[in-house]
């Protein structure tokens, strides 16, 4: 009954396989941020952050902090980032010109709930009655490709992939791919297609933890991380 699930790092590795050379990418807070650690060697990925930088380098590590941390070079999570050749800066309206104008190839966002039509809900804090919209709503509506990164179920075992979202939506019908700790599911033609399973998991087991009915892709396979 307690089968092994993918770690957050393993989910990030799987998502990293969706990247391509030259991709312009915005990563949300949490699992999404981890994706940048798994970019294949030799591939150039251009990161965008809402607060007006693009093409910057890795986050400053704990050891580098004293030498490199600078409050004038941070990402949208408030992490210190590093300069990189080709980086540029712009103001917030120009930053969301990139997002709203459809110039971001891919965004990876966290999930509270995602529906069978690809509706995403991720901005209300569960049980707190409040929430932060931030830049996530513009990303969910306008990025060319939206990847939802999430544990398959809530802490108390309820499905996060549901027939209809019960909390306030971030954007309707926006998610293209759902990567969870037990499966990879594609949203296509307002249906959910089960494409990949975590090692040792069966279709029935994943379905049992998913509210809407999954269609099974003809080429269903095991998740490969590399």
């Amino acid at each position: 009954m307690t089968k092994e699930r993918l770690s957050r790092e393993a989910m990030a590795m799987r998502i990293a396989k969706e990247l391509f050379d030259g991709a312009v990418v915005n990563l949300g807070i949490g699992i999404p941020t981890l994706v940048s650690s798994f970019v294949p060697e030799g591939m150039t990925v251009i990161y965008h952050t809402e607060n007006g930088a693009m093409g910057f380098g890795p986050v400053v590590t704990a050891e580098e902090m004293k030498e490199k941390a600078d409050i004038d070079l941070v990402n949208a999570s408030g992490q210190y980032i590093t300069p990189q050749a080709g980086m540029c800066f712009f103001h917030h309206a120009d930053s969301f010109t990139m997002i709203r104008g459809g110039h971001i190839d891919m965004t990876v966002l966290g999930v509270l709930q995602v529906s069978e039509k690809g509706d995403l809900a991720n901005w209300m804090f569960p049980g707190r009655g409040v929430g932060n919209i931030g830049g996530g709503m513009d990303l969910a509506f306008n990025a060319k490709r939206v990847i939802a990164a999430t544990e398959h179920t809530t802490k108390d075992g309820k499905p996060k992939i549901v027939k209809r979202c019960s909390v306030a939506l971030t954007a309707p019908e926006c998610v293209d791919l759902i990567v969870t700790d037990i499966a990879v599911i594609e949203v296509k033609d307002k249906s959910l297609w089960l494409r990949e399973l975590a090692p040792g998991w069966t279709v029935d087991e994943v379905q049992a933890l998913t509210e809407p009915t999954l269609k099974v892709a003809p080429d269903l396979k095991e998740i490969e991380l590399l």
Partner: protein
Amino acid sequence: MINKVFETFEEAVKDVPDGAVIMVGNFAGPGGTPFYLIQALRRQGAKNLTIVANTAGGIGLTLDYDDHRILFENKQVKKVIASFPFSTSASRPSVAEKQILSGEVELEIVPQGTLSERIRAGGAGIPAFYTPTGAGTVIEKGKEVGVFDGRPCLLERALKADYAFVRAFKADLMGNLVYRGTQRQFNPIMAIAARTTIAEVDQVVDPGELDPESIVTPGIYVKRIVKVKEDPGFPRHLERNFQVRQA
């Protein structure tokens, strides 16, 4: 030429009246936040303010410092227009969160791209624009919906302010501003959308000393300039720029 440089932050905010609408540059850390202007406004005490900013202050994301949270603490705010108004930590809710939930402060929550564009529109004389963001969500409530290329879009209104508090790196005496790295964020768009824009800067230089190709905020938008005179002690290397290779 009118002298735009004010000696103290006190003088620069002295005339802010009760009920003023104030835009405040702020995003993920102290870099682009005019916190000395905010502190001066707390001491000045104007009440019933409407604050337009990305957050409602004190979201606890990074370093602890006096952002506009202190205006909420001091009960100077009646309304806040923000995209990210709440603390990310349920156990450490911000002052604004309690005031918003109790109804003491009114919240207008706006997606960040729409907030940016509404501010820019305010400066650009565009009274309203359509955006797809928010259609079919709670953001749609009360708004006109137009369909363009088959996509529903919301009509969003421009935002203007009486004052903008902006943070920049250097100002020249004409008011031209350059920023440093991610310090720009909301500052350049707020600078164009307020009747009186006040810039808090690290350096004031003579006209001609800033590279005209790097000036982000043209001087005509800036009415007052105040130089920061102390080092607040945050990690910062003002002697460096962020260019990787020198040409």
